[in-house]
């Protein structure tokens, strides 16, 4: 009886240490990115706090080389853009592009559009080269664009 109990206890400890080990072995320093995003969705008016918290994650992640999570520079850049700081936004889009080859197409578009918007307000939305507004039928939105 006591042996069984001991065995179960040990099993739990082993499983716990493994789970803890798995959780801490992350490739990137995400900080509380998921909670920050969720807080922003739960309370969209609080955009200043969102920008500030994203900035903190970037700052902490940048300390270690290759630890900045994919998408984070761009996410922060877009928050800066929404806060009316397009120059800084472009700086972070460029950082994203430099760090992640996979982001090149998207970042090039965003940089171009943000620059255009900055020089010539009002202009197209920052995603201006993306599909036109949704049509009447679902799926028509993207199909409308010429090849």
């Amino acid at each position, binding site marked *: 009886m006591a042996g069984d109990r001991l065995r179960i206890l*040990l099993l739990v400890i082993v*499983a716990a240490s493994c789970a803890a080990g798995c959780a801490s072995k992350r490739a990137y320093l995400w900080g509380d990115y998921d909670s920050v995003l969720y807080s922003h969705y739960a309370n969209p008016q609080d955009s200043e706090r969102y920008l500030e918290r994203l900035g903190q994650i970037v700052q902490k992640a940048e300390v270690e080389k290759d630890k900045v999570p*994919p998408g984070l520079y*761009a996410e922060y850049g877009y928050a800066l853009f*929404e806060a009316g700081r397009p120059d800084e936004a472009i700086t972070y889009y460029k950082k994203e592009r430099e760090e992640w080859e996979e982001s090149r197409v998207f970042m090039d578009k965003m940089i171009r559009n943000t620059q255009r918007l900055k020089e010539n307000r009002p202009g197209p939305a920052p*995603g201006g080269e993306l599909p036109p*507004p*949704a049509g009447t039928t679902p799926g028509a939105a*993207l199909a409308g664009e010429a090849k």
Partner: protein
Amino acid sequence: MSRRRLLLPLLGFLLLCLGCAAAPPKKDYTAFRAANPRSILVVPVVNNTTNVEAPGLFLSTLPIPVGERGYYVFPVNMVKRVLEDEGLSDPNLVHTADTGRLCNLFGADSVLYVSIEAWTAQYMVFSTQVTVEFDYVMKDGKTGDTIWKEHKRVVYAPQQQSGGGSPLASLVAAAVQAAVTKAAPNYMPLARQANAEVINTPGVGLPAGPRSKEYGKDPGSGK
């Protein structure tokens, strides 16, 4: 005594491995291997429940597990806002749009579509039963074909085990217990648990991406 001390944790670890290995039948990863995506565009989540907070919360929990799996994951909120600016604020429209075109516009290799099928808290006399259920579909940007899909239902009720009953699942459930209170269930741990199981379970999960150390070693990943 010393031998026993060594043996028990070893046995525990073995059982744990067995629990993981005895997972559902293996998937066919042929299409995934052919597509061999490097980047994943996670688009806004379709909500088939009445809970208005569910899609935002669930979208928030997706980038971390996908990125950690070894893929470039596009900035989810930025993508969501850009799509909204283009008139695609309804996730249903995004999900029914042409995958190839969507990928071209963002320069993405693939798209991950997630829909929420259940997101409920059932209040009973002594406890609260919380159910979350998700559909995950990943499509290739070049062909538009589905290259991976998975369905996950997590039911949590105190005094009752959720998941497959493996030691790890029980343990996670125990951790979740603290978060799920009768007054206001916190879905965040449940969403994280569902994602972790769906994405990381060997043989059925998302194969490791090019930026992962496991790339090419697990079924479906690599060329």
